[in-house]
């Protein structure tokens, strides 16, 4: 495979379940060595896309290439070169965690034993316990160890940290970073924006089975505004007349708004003159980007807009 072959190349993918269209012309491209964040609300088609990439679901139209191959036709060959972690890991209750790791690895085609043991240690796993006694987080760790200890060129991770505590999430982040440095490609589907921001250089955001935005995090961030909440002892007063504020809302002394990065300096100077008692500014987060720019109609966001219009 030449270096220019993308790790994942999906174009116009369509998948229907009866009358429901789960994927409606989805596009996704992951270059080799890239760590791609794959974001979307519940039911937007992330897992369906991944299932088609794994060759366990058929597409109705469009095309998908995995490491240059057909994910359905060449499933076996391709699966030797990828590793997969589902978001909801179900293990055989009568087998131990260690056995499950080895079975899954062997079916993939091998594992680095020292890496496996090191990861079991790092994830603080007892591999001698029966899977029935594991908590959700521990089951998740089993699938993570099996995938992360592999020599796979491409890791497909579908909400891999669900159920992990923050400490273990940290271990996961470190391990994926190491793998990325080795030049492996990663598709990371997630709800956790912080995790995606930490790990991914590229992000694809999908909604209702379509790709709504794709690009590097830096590219997406410049579109972004910083959120600020302040407590102004004198109330909002003339501050409300500024034209560079967005999503402004005021409740007595409490004022919150968002501001474009370019206007931030001028706004802060104005604020300083009003002697605020407290100021909290939230850095541009992927979450806001996701919620505001791409029109995810959250009821709360709609209510905010209504409040501003009313005031």
């Amino acid at each position, binding site marked *: 495979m030449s270096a220019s072959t993308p790790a994942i190349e999906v174009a116009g993918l369509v998948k229907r379940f009866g009358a429901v269209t789960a994927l409606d*012309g989805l596009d996704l491209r992951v270059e080799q060595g890239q760590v791609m964040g794959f974001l979307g609300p519940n039911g937007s088609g992330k897992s369906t896309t991944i299932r088609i990439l794994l060759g*366990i679901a058929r597409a109705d139209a469009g095309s998908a290439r995995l490491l240059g191959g057909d994910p359905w036709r060449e499933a076996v060959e391709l699966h030797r070169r990828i590793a997969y972690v589902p978001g909801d890991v179900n293990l055989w209750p009568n087998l131990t965690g260690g056995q499950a790791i080895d079975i899954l690895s062997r079916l993939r085609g091998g594992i680095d034993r020292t890496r496996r043991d090191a990861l079991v240690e790092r994830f603080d796993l007892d591999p001698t316990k029966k899977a029935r006694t594991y908590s959700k987080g521990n089951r998740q760790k089993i699938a993570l160890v099996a995938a992360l200890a592999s020599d796979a060129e491409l890791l497909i991770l579908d909400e891999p940290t669900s159920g992990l505590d923050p400490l273990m999430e940290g271990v996961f982040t470190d391990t994926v970073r190491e793998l990325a440095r080795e030049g492996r490609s990663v598709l990371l589907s997630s709800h956790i924006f912080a995790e995606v921001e930490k790990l991914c250089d590229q992000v694809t955001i999908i909604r209702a089975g379509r790709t709504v935005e794709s690009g590097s995090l830096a590219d997406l961030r410049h579109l972004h505004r910083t959120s600020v909440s302040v407590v102004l002892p004198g109330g909002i007063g003339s501050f409300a007349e500024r034209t560079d504020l967005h999503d402004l809302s005021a409740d007595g002394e409490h004022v919150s708004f968002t501001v474009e990065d370019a206007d931030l300096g001028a706004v802060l100077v104005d604020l300083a003159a009003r002697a605020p008692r407290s100021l909290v500014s939230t850095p541009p987060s992927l979450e806001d980007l996701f919620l505001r720019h791409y029109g995810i109609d959250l009821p709360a966001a709609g209510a905010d807009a209504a409040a501003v219009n009313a005031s």
Partner: protein
Amino acid sequence: MTALAPARPSAATPGRTAPVATFAGFPDLTAFIVRRNWLRLTLWVVILVGMVAMVFESQRVAFPTQESRDAYAAIANTPAVAALTGLPYGAGTLGGILNIKIWMTLAVSIGFASIFLLTRNGRAEEEAGRTELIRAGAVGHHAYSLANQLVVGGLSVVVGLLIGLTCIGLGLPAEGSLAMGASIAGVGIAFLGIAAVAGQLTSTSRAANSLASIVLGVSYLVRAIADVRAEGETPDALSWASPIGWAQNMRSFGENTWWPLLLLVGVGVGGCLVAAAVESRRDVGAGVLPDRAGPPRASRRLTTTLGLAVRLQRGPMIGWLLGGMVGGAFYGGVANAMADLLASGNPMGEVFAGGADTMLDGLLGLFLMVSAMVAAGYTVQAATAVRLEEASGRLEPQVAGAVSRTRWASVHYLLGAVWGVVILAASGLVFGVAFAFTASDPAQVWRIFAASLAYVPTLFVLAGVAVFLTGWLPRATVLVSWIVFGASAVIAIFGPLFSLSEEAIAATPFAATPRVPGVEFEALPLVVLSLVALALWALGLARFRARDLTLA
């Protein structure tokens, strides 16, 4: 954008072209399935082959001389035997007697073994999401299914071979021995194919097991009708409409006809091929029969403990009720067809009547007991569902609400027992009506209906076994409850075959109940059964309240 053009499947669309290396990973997966199931596989082999040896021994003792066997042959062919265990033939030989006594039990058992094992490793794994993990490895599309089919098919072959060799070892004719083993193996392989198709059509293991079991039940009933209609020892044409009938028509220890084995293996292999064809066209986790949309809200009734229990049990409740009523109608109709034959004073009556005044009453008692087994089957299933609810983790959020564990469990258990009584009463009523109609004696309706209710305490005892086990041995509940049920049923019908003493037989739940209307009604056994049931329920519920909830 691509989305502007109407999207069409092309050669590049995943799923449009046939996969390569469809069987990669097959050896590893076969070893894996054997390792997960070795205990179950071993138990089936030991039990099925062991039964042959035990029954043969008891029959050799019961019919030691050729004269005794000839005497038996003269009376063996009764409609009751034909309906329950198949058309008797060759009763003048030990092989023929062995066939009459045990063949049908073995055939039905291996059919269920195939269905349950195939579903356990197939649809159930897929439902749990583990197949997805496996298929994400370097595993071909059909490798896992083929490994499963091969292991389960292997069970049939091994059981068949060992039955054949055991019979030869016991001194029976070689060809008949092998034909018997092969016919049993053939039933197992045929139902393996049927279960494979059922597992592709449905999307849950429960539905897959039910669908395949219904086919098995219908096959049994069809051949039962055929065997009752048979003239002499010649099979009725209808028996060719049932896979079990095909295997019977191999006539082991009789004519030893081998070609029906091709039909059985054909259904097995054909079923697997159809399953593979469906599998290569569908997504992992999906079935062919569609999942329908349901109501967006729970009705007021559904939000009560009882309402939810009824909703969860609705399918089995209706299914077992219909099964019980069909069975009742069948037995009611058949009983009358026997009346003429029985009028001649067939001495076989002594054996079946079990001390009844007349042979007809004895047969009615036997059939009523078999009807009660259907009702008890539902009750056991419903009672074990409590443990399944706990094991799956669905119980925890329920008792985290304002409902006590004891109340929750009692509602589920009582629903199972009470509905079991409903099935008992309904099948007894249908039985009575069918019998009264054919016998032109309206008084029989009430007599049969009342007699069927004698089994109410038995239902509560069998439910009590599950209640007790759920309290004290939760992990063993499902398996042991069914073993107790199965052993009670087999001992009640075939107890004497295993050289068990009368006292031991009478100590089991079904056999303890007086076989009314054939024998005089006695209240004492029912009182004892009721006390046993009460103790089992009380001990089980008390322990269930006190212990930790445990997952699978």
